[in-house]
């Protein structure tokens, strides 16, 4: 699903350039459920943005689903984001003036799906995350956990192969966080590949593999049962 070789990311801010990723290699097979952990500023979000095709690496090769995407232009990347990737953010990122239904519908509009198909899919997805009766509610009328469930439904709208989540439980209480994790587990069981960033060791434990990033490189990659293989920097 994902293959990265020697990924570097440089941010040129003013006179000093920050090297957020320093030659990172990563491989993710289809159907994996992986968490990324690491100290603040280690480059987790930077990596996630590149994997999610929101940003491009300064150097290195990146294959996504068999395609080399590191050289793609803006519209090609938009296409990949639309069709192959579903994002879940820490702060939900729902459109405030749109209802739950309309938020979930949005990626399908960008994909050009017909009205009938959109209606069917949106209804099914919102029901699946337990919000079948809240479809016409706006984000302000929903709790944090509910907003995140709308965001997950939205991430699934175009049936992507890969779900990316940057601290999806970061803004939720432990109970809602556990619920969200439950949904992710279900998704994984039905065959979706999931990559998520987390600060919470308990959340990381529930994934099947944990990658530790430090200073822009992967320092360890552990299986969920604790027996890790250490891939040195």
């Amino acid at each position: 699903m994902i293959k990265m070789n020697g990924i570097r990311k440089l941010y040129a801010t003013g006179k000093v350039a920050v090297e957020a990723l320093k030659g990172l290699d990563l491989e993710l097979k289809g159907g994996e459920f992986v968490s990324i952990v690491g100290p603040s500023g280690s480059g987790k979000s930077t990596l996630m943005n590149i994997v999610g095709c929101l940003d491009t690496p300064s150097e290195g090769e990146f294959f996504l689903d068999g395609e080399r995407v590191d050289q793609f232009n803006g519209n090609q990347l938009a296409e990949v984001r639309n069709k192959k990737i579903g994002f879940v953010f820490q702060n939900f990122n729902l459109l405030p003036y749109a209802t739950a239904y309309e938020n979930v519908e949005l990626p399908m509009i960008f994909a050009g799906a017909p009205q009938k198909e959109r209606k069917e899919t949106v209804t099914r997805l919102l029901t699946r995350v337990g919000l079948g009766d809240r479809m016409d509610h706006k984000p302000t009328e929903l709790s944090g956990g509910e907003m995140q469930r709308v965001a997950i439904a939205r991430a699934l709208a175009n049936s992507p192969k890969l779900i990316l989540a940057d601290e999806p439980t970061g803004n939720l209480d432990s109970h809602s966080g556990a619920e969200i994790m439950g949904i992710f587990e279900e998704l994984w069981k039905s065959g979706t590949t999931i990559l998520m960033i987390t600060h919470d060791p308990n959340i990381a434990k529930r994934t099947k593999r944990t990658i530790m990033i430090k200073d822009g490189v992967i320092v360890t990659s552990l299986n969920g049962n604790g027996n890790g293989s250490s891939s040195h920097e």
Partner: protein
Amino acid sequence: MQLTSLKLYMKQFLHDLRAQKLRTFLTLVGLSWGTVTVICLLAFGYGLQNNQQEQMKGLGDNIVIMWASNTSKPYAGYPKGRWFGFVPDDIKMMRQNIPDLEAVSGEFQRGNITIRNGRKSKLIQISGVDPEFAPMRTIVPEDGGRFLNDIDVNDKRRVIFLGNDLRDEIFGEGIDPVGKAVLIDNVPYTVVGVMVKKKQDSSYSGRDKDKGFVPATTFQSTYGDRYLDNIVFRAKTLEIHKQAVDRTYETFAKRYKFDPTDREALSMWDTVEDNGFMVFFVAMRLFVGFVGFMTLMVGGIGLANIMYVVVEERTKEIGIKMALGAKKGFVLFGFIFETLILTTIGGGIGYGIAQLIISLAPMMNIKDYVGTPTLSLQDKLAVVAILGFIGFMASFFPARRAANMNPVQALKL
């Protein structure tokens, strides 16, 4: 898909409208005001020009009025300053020798002539002319009457054609005097027609509405004038107008033996040359259009400003949409769409107000001075084009800024 996107754009637009009530309102006011100004300036300018054109036709449509004068150059042994006069035979000569002419008429004039109908009498000016005089001077007979004709001229008939104001005074307003007799210096003449009211702002000897017209031949035998006061002529087309004028000089130079380059020997009032005046109107309209355009530009700058604010405020939203797969074109078009809607609304309101002003203008009794303000199709298209241009310019730059945003940066806000 297209329709769905439009719905989405519309939703965004309504959202912005609600979020930015005051700013949107002020922008609309600016755009409407600009549109009203442009349309009114153009419409009044056009009305004024039409009015002027009509007035000029009142004197004559592309005619030349010609007077005999003194020579200013010595020629063939004659000294300069020699005088000569036109005689009716000169008209025949012109018809024969200058094929470029469409119409030509001599004109005798005499003032202080008494016209009498029963008890009503008046001192007027009379012209003795040929039938071709009428079309040149845009003189049209009222229904039931006619202008002088060839038979009148050949038979030296005692017939008279009346100016409309003269008729009003001598016979009464709206009375049809055709067939009735009037006394001209105590000689009975039959009225053959009355002139339809026309606009005329320039003349060389009083307005046609106050005059009486009799056949040139009748005039000459009655009053014994030897010389015509002036000659009026018109070329067949505007293209050969200059040529006709030159031929006229040559012909008269030969006949009266003056230097053909002596332009002062014949003095001409060339109303075609006068049309250079129209250039002034075109220039005025361009200027007025430019002023209006600048007014609208100010509205446009307000519009661009509000769109920059909208982009600013919607950065996060743009980031979200981009993350979900919206392409640059979608973002770009969304903003252009919104701005064009605002422009359409502002322009529409302005158009409505301007139309109201234009339709009320004739009630103010200013028609004689400024004509009827009219919005020509050309001007309408110009206004639409200007509005479209401004709407597009005002939206394009903010929209491009939005579309070129880095999704990661946009999401961070």
